[in-house]
């Protein structure tokens, strides 16, 4: 069994949005929508302000509320790597999965189905990295198998402090941010 995860180094990310453009190009994301985006969180008071820049997207949770609430089974976990996907032709556009996601990572595609990041599963199945990872100019994004202790992502998590988003929501997100 493999467990695909993404590790993003917030000390290297400059918020250039190359990952956003690469995703829109690779996945033909309609104009006005985005499957990934950049957030900036500034904490503290001058002169001791901490800034964290993150490239965010669907967290492909191990305990995905969007999959649990889907009434048709359109939202599902892919058998290889645990990636959360949506079968477009099965989706009725009820929007329950959008309301169930604590990260607001989904949107309704103009064609009527729920849409979101797929970890570029079509590229991963060919042995390539997701488009966002492959274009990152600062090499702050890493993709791999968390169940392989020798993979790059496993070694990063073993050696660097990291966090996930909203762990208190209990969704067990699979995107880790190195700090």
């Amino acid at each position, binding site marked *: 069994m493999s467990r695909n995860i993404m590790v993003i180094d917030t000390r290297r990310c400059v918020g250039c949005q190359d990952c956003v453009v690469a995703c829109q190009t690779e996945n033909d994301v309609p104009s006005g*929508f985005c499957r990934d985006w950049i957030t900036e*969180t500034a*904490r503290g008071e001058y002169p001791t302000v901490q800034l964290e820049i993150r490239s965010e997207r669907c967290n492909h949770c191990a305990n995905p509320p969007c999959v649990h609430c889907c009434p*048709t089974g359109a939202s599902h976990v892919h058998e290889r790597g645990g990636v959360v996907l949506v079968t477009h032709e099965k989706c*009725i556009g*009820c929007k329950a999965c959008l309301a169930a996601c604590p990260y607001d990572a989904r*949107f309704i595609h103009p064609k009527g189905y729920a849409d979101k990041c797929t970890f570029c599963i079509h590229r991963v199945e060919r042995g390539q990295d997701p488009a966002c990872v492959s274009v990152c100019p600062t090499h702050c994004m890493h993709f791999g198998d968390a169940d392989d202790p020798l993979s790059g992502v496993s070694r990063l998590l073993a050696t660097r402090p990291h966090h996930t988003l909203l762990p208190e929501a209990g969704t067990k997100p699979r995107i880790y941010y190195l700090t």
Partner: protein
Amino acid sequence: MIEYTTTRHNPGVDPILHLWGWEIPLYLFLGGLVAGLMILSGYHILRSRWDRDQAQGHYVTAPLLSLALLSAGMLTLFLDLEHKLQVWRLYLTFRPASPMSWGSWILLFVYPALVASALLTLAASLPRLRQRLPVLARVSESLAGHNGAVHLIGFANVVLGAMLGIYTGVLLSALGARPLWNSALLGPLFLFSGLSTGAATLHLLSHLTPRAGEGSPGFSDALASVMVNWLRPPSAQDGSRKLEQADNSFLTIELALLALFFGGLMTSTLAHQTGARLLLTGPWAAPFWVFVVGSGILLPLLLQFLQAQRRIQSTWVPALLVLGGGLALRFILVGAGQASHWSVALP
């Protein structure tokens, strides 16, 4: 100080979630109302109070009205779907973890129960149809003549009505990403709100379908009775008194459930407390306190108490207030719930 900025700009999601407009709250209201009508009319049948010759007009009309209201609710649900042509896929699978899947299958059983209930009272509710479609009249009479069938229909209406009423709340409470909705009390709250609106509808029907020789009080009569007759001593019972008492019980339970709902949220995490404050002191506070608690629960409670005591004339004003309160509860909870959120700014 924490400053959070994002480049995300997805329609319907940013800056705050606003996916569900008028369709879903209206569906939840109509679903709850039908659930209340099913439970009350099913209970009426089970208690062997159903008698074609003595049946009260409003109980006879209730199943047909329920069918119409539920169909209107289903239409609003359908209008809310973004991928409408795929709606049939709901019935290709059953997803035990999905309240929406439960709801779609419950609705499939609710319709036959309502049709059976309507058939039971068909001869009394539509005498002309009885003449034009004697086959239906024969089915109706054979159902009514079979005691076991009558009780099965009553039981099915009570059970399915309860499931439908609870499901309308669970539909929201299962969405843990919205802290305001994330309470197990939302199911019972919507059930009792549905029961109070169901009783109010029956009460309203009893005013709209008066017995021979009786007139239906108008709005001016209603206001005048509130202002002038409130000191009138109690007099003899009439058909609507029990409905008023039942509605008052449901409203009291609804008020207690609302208090417990907020108590639960306010003693939970900061996200839940922030969600509760949206209604208690935040942007939804004014409509919530005025339309849900004030004119939707407390005022009809008082009016119906005085009516039950025969201190004021029985009118349809409290029933209308209860219906308005039930509708406002759904609109406000759906709107505020979408705005409540776990903060993504804090990793």
